[in-house]
């Protein structure tokens, strides 16, 4: 990642570290909507998303001195939001992974085959995701939309990377099936 990207909003971040409330608000205003979308994708209920958002920003600002530009501020903040969202799902006892009896041991060439015969459309994908079981939705969101790799997902969900991979492939297979039916 180039330095220019990593140091995005450096001035605002540094002033926020000093406790400048106006700058903290500016930083909040810049990221609140993107983080709200992350929350909504994860927990789906607006009130819950707002609660998580609030807790995440408080934690982020309180721990801002620990942010050392090893990633972008957005990625750092998103990690906090996602962790909070996962904790929220755990508290609600919602499954983080989906266990199905069907055998979804999909070969890559089969996936490619399926992909090539599907006309992609953002709205159909979004609709398809909502029809997935909760565990599949989580892994699809994390991998496909939030851009996490399987190592990061395994850390966030507390599973191993191979489980993450298999979960993703199953989820994707299910999603494509659903999309075919839409």
């Amino acid at each position, binding site marked *: 990642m180039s330095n220019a990207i990593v140091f995005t909003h450096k001035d605002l971040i540094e002033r926020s570290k000093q*406790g400048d*409330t106006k700058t*903290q*608000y500016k930083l*909040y*205003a810049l990221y*609140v*909507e*993107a983080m*709200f*979308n992350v929350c*909504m*994708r994860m927990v789906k209920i607006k009130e819950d*998303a*707002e609660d998580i*958002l*609030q807790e995440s*920003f*408080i934690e982020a*600002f*309180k721990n801002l001195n620990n942010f050392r530009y090893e990633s972008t501020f957005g990625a750092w903040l998103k990690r906090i939001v996602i962790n909070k969202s996962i904790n929220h799902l755990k508290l609600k006892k919602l499954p983080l992974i989906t266990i199905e009896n069907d055998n979804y041991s999909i070969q*890559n060439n089969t*996936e*490619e085959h399926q*992909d*090539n015969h*599907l006309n*992609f459309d*953002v709205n159909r*994908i*979004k609709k398809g995701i909502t029809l997935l079981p909760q565990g599949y939705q989580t892994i699809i969101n994390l991998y*496909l*939309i939030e*851009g996490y790799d399987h190592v990061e997902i395994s850390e966030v969900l507390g599973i191993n990377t191979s489980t993450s991979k298999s979960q993703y492939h199953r989820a*994707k297979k299910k999603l*494509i099936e659903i999309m075919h039916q839409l």
Partner: protein
Amino acid sequence: MSNKFEKYVEKHKLEFDVHTIDEASKLRLWGQIAPQLTKPTPKVIPLWQKPVFKVAATIVLLMGCTLFFTLYTSNINQNTIVNNELYDIDNHYKVLVNNQITLIKHNTHLTEEDRTEFLTLIDDLDQEYNKLKKELTLGINNQKIIEAIISNYRKKIKLMEDLLNRSYPINDTIDDEAITL
């Protein structure tokens, strides 16, 4: 390995951000966040409310009082000694000075000019004496001041003796006759 599906989603990622948050909600949320970001003012426990400090303060106060009274008493004692010493000196030298003054008063050989000069010198010495007496009350290096007072008296007596010596007529004839005899 990303395939066509992942690539498509990656390309249209922003279109998945469908939720918006209005300004009112933004401000409302910030209103709940901001108060938690202000650093709480550290609770200050006044030092004097600590029992340890109270004990220490009492000890210091007692020590201070003891030291003050010790020094004060010692100073009083020292002043008494100095005053007694000064009283003795004054008594001793005043007698001598008064004797000399009587002699000067009764001396008919003194010119007016000699008297005026003598009085001026005596005035200066008196001023010096008063100044030294004042310094004695300060209690700084009393021994030296006492010595200076004694020296002052001696100067006065010496002046008077010199004046009287100068005023008496010298009778050379008598002396010569005595030698002849």
